[in-house]
């Protein structure tokens, strides 16, 4: 396999090189700690950004790396949220186990729906993910006695994290918890995409017909990544339920699925950091603009979306990447 400059490179060495931590990456994660010191009144916003970023990373795994266009990814987010919320509501408020429960529930549903999703492509895929999203939202609404319906789930009481950190008004615990979860999931995702499995996903994305021909059948791989992505989305949802101690129907809704797709395009798909950057930009912009001229927020988002697709289809990170000289590129 040819590396930059044309020399032959051993595939495993190439992969190993991808996984090395670059300076900008380390700087980024250190910077993520800054809000604790510099912006302590913005910690709640920061924790919600971290959660959304985690959700975006989970979508990137299927959309950016495997090429599955899903407009219903929020289903798994919502399932994670409701599971964690319900467990806390009914007496067991320990955060970590609640988080794991949410992840497990989302994984199971992800696997089952994944069996359907990986068998379709193009418009049918889009429609099925959309349809599953609406079905889930309707179901949550009908089961109002369990989920709280349109009024939202009430009475969610989460215990102190590790028995010591209360979920306080300022959001210190919330941000620490969310950031830690984001980092862990990110590490896992990084391992995943820079592995032979991850490479095969990119192969499927580029040319679906070729992959089985070279001995790497599609469906099993797609199902695996879809289930993993559902698990991560569930973790994000559970985090939201626990840090805000409330869950509503819109955690499953189309708006959430669409917003996260917008963030991913904004940041750049297939780059893992794209989802994080996109989430940061989107949510900070919304927070700031919400004070200025809120009524037409979606007008500007729409315009931004159109502009990004037309002029910067690889997103912010893609645009930045083009500025970086060839030999420094990792992907």
């Amino acid at each position, binding site marked *: 396999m040819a590396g930059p400059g044309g020399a032959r490179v051993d595939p495993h060495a190439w992969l190993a090189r991808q996984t090395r931590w670059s300076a900008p990456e380390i700087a980024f994660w250190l910077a993520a700690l800054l809000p604790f010191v510099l912006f302590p*009144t913005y910690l*709640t916003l920061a924790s919600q950004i971290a959660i959304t970023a985690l959700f975006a990373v989970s979508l990137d795994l299927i959309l950016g790396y495997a090429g599955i266009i899903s407009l219903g990814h929020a289903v798994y987010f919502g399932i994670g949220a409701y599971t964690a919320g319900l467990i806390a509501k009914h007496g067991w408020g320990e955060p970590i186990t609640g988080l794991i429960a949410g992840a497990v529930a989302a994984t199971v549903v992800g696997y089952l729906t994944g069996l359907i999703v990986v068998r379709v492509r193009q418009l049918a895929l889009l429609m099925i993910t959309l349809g599953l999203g609406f079905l889930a939202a309707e179901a949550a609404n009908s089961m*109002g006695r369990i989920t709280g319906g*349109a009024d*939202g789930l009430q009475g969610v009481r989460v215990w102190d994290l590790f028995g010591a950190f209360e979920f306080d008004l*300022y959001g210190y615990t919330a941000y620490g918890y969310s950031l830690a979860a984001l980092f862990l999931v990110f590490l896992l995702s990084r391992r995943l995409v820079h592995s032979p499995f991850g490479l095969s996903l990119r192969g499927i994305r580029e040319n679906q017909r070729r992959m089985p021909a070279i001995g790497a059948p599609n469906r099993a791989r797609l199902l695996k990544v879809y289930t993993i992505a559902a698990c991560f989305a569930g973790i994000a949802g559970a985090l939201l339920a626990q840090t805000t101690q*409330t869950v509503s129907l819109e955690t499953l809704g189309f708006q959430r699925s669409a917003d996260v797709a917008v963030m991913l395009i904004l940041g750049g798909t297939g780059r893992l950091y794209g989802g994080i950057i996109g989430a940061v930009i989107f949510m900070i912009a919304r927070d700031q603009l*919400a004070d200025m001229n809120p009524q037409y927020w979606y007008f500007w988002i729409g315009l931004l979306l159109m502009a990004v697709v037309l002029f910067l289809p690889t997103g912010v990170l893609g645009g930045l990447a083009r500025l970086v000289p060839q030999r420094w590129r990792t992907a």
Partner: protein
Amino acid sequence: MLKLRVALSCAAALLLGVAGAQAEDTVKIGIIAPYSGQFADTGVQMDNGIKLFTQQHGDKAGGKKIELIRKDVGGIAPDVAKRLAQELIVRDKVDLLAGFMLTPNAMAAGDVSAQAKKFMVVMNAATSVIIDKSPYMVRTSVTTPQINENYGAWVFKHGTKKVYTMVSDYGPGQDAEQAFHRGFKAAGGEIVGADRFPVANPDFSAFVQRAKNANPEAIYIWVPGGTQPAAIAKALAERGINPSNTKIFGQGELTLPEALKSMGDSAIGIITAFHYDYNHQSATNKEFVGAFEKMHNRIPDIYSVGAYDGMHLIYAALDKTKGKTDGEALVNAAKGMAWESPRGPISIDPQTRDIVQTIYIRKVDKVNGQLVNVEFDKVEKAKDPTHGMKK
């Protein structure tokens, strides 16, 4: 790693404490409402009510200057509402919270109000249990059972023995259905059928046909405002169901001005129950509507009057506490307060902190060539029955 984080947090907290002393003679009010998205128009009407009040009464109350800080929650987003409430308290140092169009948002912010012990005024959200979320919360709008349970009793007492109900299948619709059933059955009536339709239902033909097959004496409808009232009314008219052969009862949303324009004369005779109509015949209301139209070039609605009365409450409470803003003082000042609102006489129940007001029964009629809701009966001093009135 954890110790480092804790140490950093403490340092930050100390810094904050030093920086946090606020101006002693300003009262900051944090207003959380949907200024964008699907509910933007209701948010605007709410804000119009607030603006009218501050224009008429100035920006001083209880000897202090009043400052309003507005935050857009964007729609149904309790996580955002909670965060905004937290940020308003922690970052902007507001003394009290107000606004709240939507129930999930009010519930989430209620938690913050209780935790931070801040006075909170709910200006619209209508679900009963909201008020229990915080002992520092009061409401100046209405609750769904307050209207519908009293309405159910009224309907029976005025000659209707059997009713077929049709409501939207989500929180408020279900609340309305339950409340109406309770009131109607307690008075002695019989519910002959109860249907629920999906929230954003485009086509009502199936449901209307089901109602028609039951051949009821009366139909009760609950739909949210927007496109639904006209759609269901037209579907009924299509099947020949109109007030001349079947009594049609509904909550005020069914006969809002825009809906009436779409329905035309087939709406004449529909009976609705509501707590405010711009056509209410009182001197206070005439003045209010006039001033509102002059300032905003449109007629006020329940969102405007809920906000207007909310501001009145805040100013009056501040006057009573002479500017003290802690939650305990303000909520005690608010309890039992009574005044004449554009909608009629209202008061805040001292036990439940919820609003007590008159529910008007109106009929659609043509007055001066225009279709309007004409009030012809009322239930005075109506309370929310789920808060321990009579069961």
